[in-house]
């Protein structure tokens, strides 16, 4: 193994961790967006639960000691991973009750739990001090906006009503702003190189094209679904790259060199 001052890609978290941010984010966004539909859709809530459960399942595949996964709940005082797990638990309980009772109020509570869940996900990255591309404060808004775009995009595929389209449009714009702030703040050259293509796709295919398609949806309803899918896939790609290729560590740095022999 060769280590040096130059940063290198972390290998502790791979596609399984990335999948949690992709699936979990989309599921949480879908749960939040579902509240905005006039008649809540049980299949959207169910899909949100499946996505979040699937994301947590992939993380479970990554941990070294699977049978003691319950220990993840032990540190709510400081760990955003513990808090994410509690938010997920609450979300599952509330959304099950919402489905069972067909209650809009409980669904709103579940959506709040989903918001907490995705906030925890964002803070998980922010708290990873070893990875400059994650610890940037701007990552929080980016991850949250991305989740909302993915969720509302998926809901638009299921149910392209005006309220959902409006939410999606606002989320896409918010994500573009969050991405721009993040990209401006990101200084590490290796991470920038890794994220460049995915970032461009996010702006062109995930922002400009969907906004145009949403306008076109007044004439052709299928355009809304296409917009949703484009925004969803570009968001997934960005998060996948952020975890698996742009997550360079800081390497080692010497602010002073040793003074040996004569000066």
């Amino acid at each position, binding site marked *: *193994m060769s*280590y*040096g*001052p130059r940063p290198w890609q*972390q290998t*502790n*978290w791979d596609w399984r961790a990335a999948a949690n941010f992709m699936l979990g984010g989309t599921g949480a966004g879908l749960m939040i967006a579902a509240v905005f539909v006039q008649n809540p859709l049980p299949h959207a809530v169910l899909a949100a639960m499946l996505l979040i459960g699937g994301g947590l399942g992939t*993380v479970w595949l*990554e*941990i*070294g*000691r699977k049978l*003691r*996964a319950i*220990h*993840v*709940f*032990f*540190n709510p005082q*400081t*760990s*955003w*991973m*513990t808090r994410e*797990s509690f938010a997920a638990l609450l979300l599952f309980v509330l959304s099950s009750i919402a489905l069972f009772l067909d209650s809009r109020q409980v669904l709103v509570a579940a959506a709040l739990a989903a918001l907490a869940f995705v906030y925890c996900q964002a803070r*998980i990255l922010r*708290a*990873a*001090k*070893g*990875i400059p591309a*994650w610890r940037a404060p701007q990552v929080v808004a980016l991850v949250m906006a991305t989740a909302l775009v993915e969720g509302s995009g998926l809901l638009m595929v299921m149910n392209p009503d005006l309220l959902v389209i409006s939410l999606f449009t606002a989320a896409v714009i918010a994500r573009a702003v969050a991405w721009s702030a993040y990209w401006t703040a990101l200084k590490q050259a290796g991470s920038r190189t890794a994220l460049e293509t995915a970032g461009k796709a996010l702006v062109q295919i995930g922002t400009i094209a969907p906004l145009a398609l949403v306008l076109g949806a007044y004439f052709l309803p299928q355009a809304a679904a296409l917009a949703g899918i484009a925004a969803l896939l570009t968001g997934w790609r960005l998060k996948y790259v952020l975890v698996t290729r742009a*997550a360079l*560590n*800081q390497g*080692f*740095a*010497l*602010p*002073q*060199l*040793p*003074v*040996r022999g004569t000066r």
Partner: protein
Amino acid sequence: MTRWVMIADLRRCVGCQTCTAACRHSNATPPEVQWRRVLDMEVGEYPAVKRVFVPVGCMHCADPPCMHVCPSTATRKRADGIVTIDYDLCIGCSYCAVACPYQARYKTDVAEFAYGKAMPNEEIRHDEKRLGVATKCTFCSDRVDAGLAQGLKPGIDHEATPACVNSCIAQALQFGDLEDKQSNVSQLLAENQFFRMHEELGTEPGFYYLWDKKEVQA
């Protein structure tokens, strides 16, 4: 109070990796796992190039991000500053590894041996508890504790001192109590100029690098 810290004198380290070997021997770490590493760094641009050997490992931070993120409370900090991992609590999520700015943590999922099959010494020292969990330098806390129990002084008495420090052929590595103003480490820090790695991150590492003697006041 006590605060155990380590010092690496960058003027003295010759990059021989004896400390790395001593650590591996003392702690029976598997191949590719080096709790104490020595980086071989080339710094500067031709013709002003310097080669520097930099011992690294867990810095036993006073404000350790690995501990804050750990969901299972497996990572803790003792009152004397040593950051520990409870192998029975750890779930092997590796969150600590991405939170550590010093690449100090490892996770080995399956047993690995130097020559594929376990040698007799590896068989004896193999510990299932260390599979699938995070591991890192312990500052040889078992040696420190056992030494203290016998009334020995860590950093001075070999039996109470981390293996890497004991083995260093150039006495580049030192270990001691920062809170004791008379200790070896306190004296060295008083007499020399030093820095800590990535100090700007606020982790307050317990690992100091000496790079020059202090300017003598006229």
